[in-house]
């Protein structure tokens, strides 16, 4: 069986985080886990490797930067991407683009 893509999602808005996790886990090739605090993310990363870290709403710019730096120190190859939109519409494209190495600052 092919290994699932492991996705870690952080967000402080619990209902939106739950929606994002539910949507991500509808893809049978993905396994999404939620966290609501930076330390939870670090602890999760210490326990097993993740492919993508999706940064949801609720962190300050400074917290997002610190989180990104600490996670990249643990897994330099992890794709860290900010989440936009709340789950509906963009979520799958965000993950596909992250796995393909794309960024959001594109003109297409």
């Amino acid at each position, binding site marked *: 069986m092919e290994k699932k893509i492991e996705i870690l999602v952080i967000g402080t*808005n619990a209902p939106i985080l739950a929606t994002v996790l539910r949507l991500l886990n509808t893809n049978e090739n993905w396994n999404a886990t939620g966290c609501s605090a930076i330390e939870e993310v670090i602890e999760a990363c210490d326990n097993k490797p993740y492919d993508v870290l999706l940064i949801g709403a609720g962190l300050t710019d400074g917290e997002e930067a610190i989180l990104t730096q600490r996670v990249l120190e643990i897994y330099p190859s992890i794709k860290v991407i900010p989440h936009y*939109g709340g789950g509906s519409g*963009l979520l799958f494209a965000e993950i596909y683009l992250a796995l393909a190495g*794309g960024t959001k600052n*594109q003109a297409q």
Partner: protein
Amino acid sequence: MAQTVLHTADSRGGADHGWLKSYHTFSFASYFNPERVQFGALRVLNDDSVDGGMGFGDHPHDNMEIISIPLEGSLQHKDSMGNLATIEPGEIQVMSAGTGIYHTEYNKDKNVPVKFLQIWVFPNKRNVEPRYDQVRIDTASTTNQLVQVLSPNPDDAGVWIHQDAWFNMGKLESGNTVDYQIHKEGNGAYIFVLEGTVEVNGQTLNRRDGYGIWDTTGFAITATANAEFLIMDVPMEF
């Protein structure tokens, strides 16, 4: 020299959910095309039609500037901030989702479908306080000129969003031309034709075609048939 991209109406992604028929200019939901993700900060341009009595149930958004422009029929909006409103053609609605918002959008008229544009623009600041607004726009008495319907400035015409973006609507009679100046260095403009036919930069655009142009300071739009269109002037890098 100006750079351009053409998205013809028939090249858009599509989704038919029965009660909802939608054309996606850019990747959205189950439509994913890595070559068609966004135009700068413009991430979503959906051309939606919702059957009578149907609509979008309670669902969340965060960190996105969401603009709706009704074209036919009316939509009833209700959100977690306590707003209850109806929007109809001649109005524009904006939501800054910021830290999170829940809302419903329903077509309360059981007999007439509602058709509207759903536009999402990446914000220039994450986690802002959620906000809702709607304003009436006068396009009826402004034929052959542009009408600003959105800007970054709360005191300017139309609604405002957290991004250096300006939207203008135009209604041109055949043979007329308007000039458009890009508002900010580094911005590009995406022209979406609502009705009729126009010519921009030598390119003919028909109903529901989209055309992006950047690395230029401005351009002219000429109606080769009576036409209505929307110009979305957005940062190409943000």
